[in-house]
């Protein structure tokens, strides 16, 4: 029986040189098969938290467990084994600008050992259909709009059928219709695969339509952690203000 806690942060603290701490003792658990929404005002440490989970950044204090394995002190080679099970969408999309769209989406698959050209092409085409950009294989990222880049980023993050997927702003720069469509598709795929997902988004209203649980970061601390219903009904004035988008309040 695999552990129920897929992602577990224990007292994670992170600060950068010459700056205030970005995260201050964050404890957070994401159970298996959960779609976890991470929200909070700008510069609250959401993106940093995602990068810590995959070991792209190292915490200054605390421990980080993926499926029960402590990855805090692992070297780059061992971390690769962990990362191979994780898909990630970066805030800036991070498309390789010297590769075509198709090569970008195929890259994680190739690195995971898929060499069959037909299988690669099939998977790439499938991902492009998922983000409503069929036939974009041979375009270069530089020629795409911001929203298109975002969707290609989503396609690449989900190319490997990973057990764990982290999305940093999957709907930024998209129109409301496409945005809702992406959220719904990602939710459907997550349900079908039983994957564990952490999603950071500023589009709180749409995000909360698909999440199971919600956490709110504020000034480097996790000030709320609970189910979506609990978040919507929270009495904490900061959470209340944030999830309902009110202009006056403590924030």
């Amino acid at each position, binding site marked *: 029986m695999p552990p129920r806690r897929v992602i577990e942060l224990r007292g994670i603290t992170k600060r950068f040189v010459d*700056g*205030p701490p*970005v995260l201050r003792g964050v404890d957070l658990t994401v159970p298996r098969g959960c779609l976890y929404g991470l929200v909070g*005002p700008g510069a*609250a440490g959401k993106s940093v938290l995602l990068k810590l989970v995959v070991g*792209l950044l190292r915490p200054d204090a605390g421990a980080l467990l993926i499926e029960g394995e402590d990855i805090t002190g692992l070297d780059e080679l061992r971390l690769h084994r962990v990362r191979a099970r994780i898909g990630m969408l*970066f805030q800036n999309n991070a498309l390789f600008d010297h590769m075509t769209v198709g090569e970008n989406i195929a890259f994680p698959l190739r690195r995971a050992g898929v060499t069959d050209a037909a299988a690669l092409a099939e998977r790439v085409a499938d991902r492009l259909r998922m983000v409503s950009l069929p036939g974009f294989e041979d375009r270069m990222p530089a020629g795409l709009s911001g929203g298109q880049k975002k969707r290609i980023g989503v396609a690449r993050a989900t190319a490997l059928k990973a057990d764990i997927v982290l999305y940093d702003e999957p709907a930024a720069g998209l129109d409301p219709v496409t945005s809702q469509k992406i959220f719904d598709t990602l939710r459907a795929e997550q349900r079908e695969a039983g994957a564990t997902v952490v999603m950071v988004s500023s589009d709180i209203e749409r995000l909360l339509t698909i999440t199971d649980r919600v956490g709110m970061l504020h000034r480097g601390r996790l000030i709320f952690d609970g189910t979506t219903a609990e978040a919507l009904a929270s009495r904490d004035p900061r959470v209340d203000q944030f999830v309902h988008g009110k202009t006056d309040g403590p924030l």
Partner: protein
Amino acid sequence: MAPPVAPATPPDDALDGDAERPRPRGLAADTGQLLIEGVRAFRGLFDVALRTVYWSLKGRREKGVVLEQAFEIGNKSVFFLTVTQGFIGMILVFQSGLQARRVVPDLTMLGATFLELLVRDLAATLASMMLATRVGAGIAAEIGSMVVTEQVDALRMCGVDPVDWLVVPRFLASVVMTGVLIFYAGAIAYFAGGATAWAVFDVQPQTYLNARLLDIGDVSIGLAKCVAYGAAIPIVSGWCGLSARGGSEGVGIATTQAVVFSSLAVIILNLVISGVGFVLFPV
């Protein structure tokens, strides 16, 4: 220092104002901090160097990647080197001709001495200072902008060591191309110097073209410098690029650092190799 948060996130009151609070600091604290940063930076550089050598020996590369970089390095530098090295050849012969005339009346050894100096030191060092500027800045800018747009993180997510993927092709290309370009630059400087010697000091070409002073020591030292500089520039610049933080300003800082630190690496290596060479090959 650039702010650590991702560039797209606007600053927020959530920072608690820690950033604005000025920290009282004395000279000792400043020096200490500089020392700590120096040690940390040196360890980072050493790490990149080690991984570059490791992956150069072990890694496999897609076809044409190294060739593409080699073309890039050559294409960027040929015109620049022609102009700067042509002028430096003329200046050096003019200056040393003036100098020599004060001590010895005849300038028959001008060409031979200049050739020795070029082979031993100047061809490699001056051309590499130029390459540090041109090629080093380019490498740091390319890698740095991949860092700040998270492409390097994305590579790491796919189990790729960014040093293997980004630095090693440039390293291999640079080791070869630096040698070639130094040879070219040296030839330019030598012939520009010859023209000056002829025009200003009336030294005939047959007198100028004289390789009698060259010996195995000069050639060994010159070759050692070619290899050392060719290896150092991409490693130092790659390290600067990989350490880029923040947005486009971060890339700008990384680029300047690459120019300064690769030039410095050339100067330091020059002193070390020249010193060792001087001891190993007594005249």
